[in-house]
Structures are given as C-alpha cells and as structure tokens.
C-alpha cells in the first residue's frame, strides 16, 4: 500500500506554490505595500486552526493510494496537489470546460466539482493511467495521428472523455461524437481534428 500524505516530500509544483505563499506573507510583514490585497487573508489564515482533515483510500490508475485531506478538497486538487497527477487540468473549476475529466469506475466525470473524500474505495483513472507502459491507448494514438490539439491544455480531458464516450457508445456517428464530446471545450478550436481522432479510434483504425 502506498501512503501519501501532505507530509510527503514536496513536488516541484507544491514547492513553488508554497514559496509563493511565503513570499506573499513576507511582503505583508515587511509592509512593502505590494501585497495589500493578499495581506489580510494571509494574516487571518495564520491565526486559525489548521483545517480538519479526513482519510480517504482510493485506487488511482491501478494503485491503491491513501491520503488525508480537507473535506472540501476537490478530487481534482487531490489528484494534482496530493498525488502529483497533473494530467487532469483546472480550466474553469466549475464544470464547464471538461479539462479535469477523469474516469470513475470507467464512467467519465468532472473531478473539479466533486469532493475527494466521496471516493473512498473507488477506482479512478486519469490520462496518466490510459497507456500500457510505452504503448499509447488507441485514443491517445488517434489524437497524435489526427493532430487533435494545438496548445494541448484541453487534450488530457478530451482523451479521457473520448475513452468514456466509447465505453458508453462504441460506434458513435459523427453527429453523436460532436454532441457527446460537447462537455470538452477547446480554446484552440481543434474540433475537426478531435472529431476525426475519435471517429478513427471508434473504427479501430488507430
């Protein structure tokens, strides 16, 4: 069993965010005036008790993980901040963009609008868990072959969502793909290539 807690060695990302917070705190103490908006919040945060945490054990990409987290932590934050899985992205944090899509027991859900502690015993798959070693998942291959992205920010959500879609409906029509991928936005508007990639994966061509 793999124990992961907030006390685990800091990742580069966690370290960066901590240094930033510390920086804001120092600025507030030094009274430089550069962090006026942040100052009261930082001071207040220092005064209150640390938040109550709850344990949760779940299987992520086939590995059993246990962590303690604030009950208000979203599944997305737990995956990214506590488990270091940054495949799921935080695009909107309100359910509207699909960048944080993960699979819950094979069903696609949005990890930003659900609490991590609700997933005791559940099986979660993120984009990191799709490939088989160095062999890409057929949907990942199809996205590469069809150039289904530009900047790539939405891509992990698109791919995970497409895997969920093909589990729900293995042979969708083009119109159905457009409709059933509508929860995943792409600001680069790679939509034609995304649809082509999903079509190709559905037909087993990738």
């Amino acid at each position, binding site marked *: 069993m793999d124990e992961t807690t907030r006390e685990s060695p800091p990742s580069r990302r966690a370290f960066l965010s901590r240094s930033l917070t510390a920086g804001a705190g120092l600025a507030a103490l030094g009274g430089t005036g550069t962090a006026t908006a942040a100052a009261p919040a930082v001071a207040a945060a220092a005064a209150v008790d640390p938040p*109550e945490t709850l344990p949760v054990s779940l299987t992520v990409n086939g590995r059993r993980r246990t962590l303690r987290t604030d009950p208000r932590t979203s599944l997305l934050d737990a995956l990214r901040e506590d488990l270091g899985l940054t495949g799921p992205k935080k695009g909107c944090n309100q359910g509207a963009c*699909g960048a944080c899509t993960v699979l819950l027991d094979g069903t696609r859900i*949005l990890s930003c609008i659900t609490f991590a502690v609700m997933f005791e015993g559940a099986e979660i798959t993120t984009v990191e868990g799709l490939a088989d070693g160095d062999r890409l998942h057929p949907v990942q291959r199809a996205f590469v072959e069809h150039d289904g992205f530009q900047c790539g920010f939405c891509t992990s959500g698109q791919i995970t969502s497409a895997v969920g879609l093909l589990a729900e409906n293995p042979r969708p029509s083009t119109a159905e793909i457009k409709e059933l991928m509508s929860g995943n936005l792409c600001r680069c508007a790679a939509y034609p290539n995304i649809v082509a990639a999903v079509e190709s994966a559905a037909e087993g061509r990738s």
Partner: protein
Amino acid sequence: MAFLRPTTWPEALAAKAELPGAVPIQGGTDVMVEINFDVRRPEALLDLTRVAELARWSETGGRLRVGAGVPYSRVIGELGDRLPGLAQASRTVGSPQIRNRGTVGGNLGAASPAGDSHPPLLAGGAVIEVESAARGVRMIPAEEFYLGVKRSALEPDELIRAFHAEPATGPQYFSKVGTRNAMVIAVCSFALALHPAERRVGTGIGSAAPTPLRARAAEEFLAAELDWAAGLAPAGLAPGVLARFGELVSEAAAPIDDVRGTAGYRRHALAVMARRTLTWAWNDYRKAREQCA
C-alpha cells in the same frame, strides 16, 4: 467542517435532524460550484451517495418511484421509454460528464426556476417524496413543491427521497431555448404531456417566472378542444387551436429581462415551443391511433 457519510436512509435523516444546516450532496454539480467559488461555506456536508437505495428506481402498481440519486444518464438510458419527457429534458442538461453525476433529486433540491427537470415533472403530474426523522414522509405534488426562486417546500430537517410518476400513456415532449446546443442554462423551456386515458393535458414552463409552473388555462383549453376519440382526423389540429394554445402558455408565464434574454423574447419563444411540442405530440397521437384502428 463536518463531512457526514451516512450509509442508510434512517442515518441520513438522523444526521439532517441533528444538523439542519448540513448541506446534502448528491452529484455535487450544484453544491461544489458554490463551494469552489466561496458562494457558500456550509457548517457541514451530508454526502448521500453512500445511501444505496437513493440510486434505485422501481415500478409498482403502474407507478414509478425514482430515487433522488438516480443520475440523468440513467434516467435517459433506463427510463426513456416510460418517462420520455423527463428523458428529453435530461439529455439537455449540461454535458455527458454532468449527466453521469447530476440527479433529478439535486435539481429539485436546488429548485432553480431554470432547472430542466421541473417542466416535465409538472407536465407529468409527478409527486415528490420528502421525509424527516421527526414527521415522517410527506408526498408533495410537483406543483406545490416550488415556492420561489431557489426556494422549495422542503423543510430544513427534511431530505428528498424520490419522485413518483406514472409511466407515459401518451406523447410527451420537452423543448428548451439556449445559446448553444450543449451546456446551457435554459433561456426558457416548455414541457407537454398528453394523458389520453383521462383526456387531460399537462404542461410545465421553465425559466420564465420565479418558479417553474403549469399553464393551467392552456391545459384546460386544449383538453376541451382536442378530438381525443377521432384523433384520426386528417386535418390534424385546427390552426386556431394551435395559436390559442401558444398564446395561453405565453400568458401563463411571468418572465423578466435578464442576461439570458428579455421578457418579450421569452413570451414569444414560449408560444413557439408550445405550438411545436403540441404539433409533435398530436402527430404521434394520431399515428398511434391509426396503428390501432
């Protein structure tokens, strides 16, 4: 902040009785957006997803009882033939990811005038089953459930357990206007149900008044005008009937101007949706009668 995880219904009711300020969570698709954006800081959260019975539905004595935790994707997949109006509305909610988690129970709990399940629940004559540890079960007709903008008849110590509805005996349709075809809050919406056995018409208007509501005058007018027995009439519906039905639906609404649309646009769109859904429903009804004849 307390996070309560009951596994049985009596435990859930006991928790809500003890902490009426606890916010229930089903799919979390409304609750969590509010928490992420700090619109709401509840003293406690009450996770209902471990209460297995809430995710079940059953049919007894010709009535359906659908647990508050059945997600939209299952309403569509498992109940689409029996509750076609609600299934159509469910297909328009958010995105597939939202429909895999979001529930009719949560839509009722939020009681937004724009919630898409409300018009078909009204048109289909659904009844909401709510319960508290102290006072037991109350059966609330959908029409009496919605009290104001995001306000319902639910008391602080009560939880929604299920809704009850009869499987459709006639055509049912739902129509919604939005700025795109996915992920939109309704500018306005309309549901129609024909109940041929009782020669009755059901309607529901969404997003065009402080609460979802029925267009009663339109229902009564149409029930009297339709030639239920001779649905075979080749001419279908008289244009005057269609137009008047549209007007009466539009008059039943009390819309406002807001970011999504003006009151005038909503009234106009409601009349159009009323005429369209009625045309679809009446064509289905006639076809079904032709096949029987």
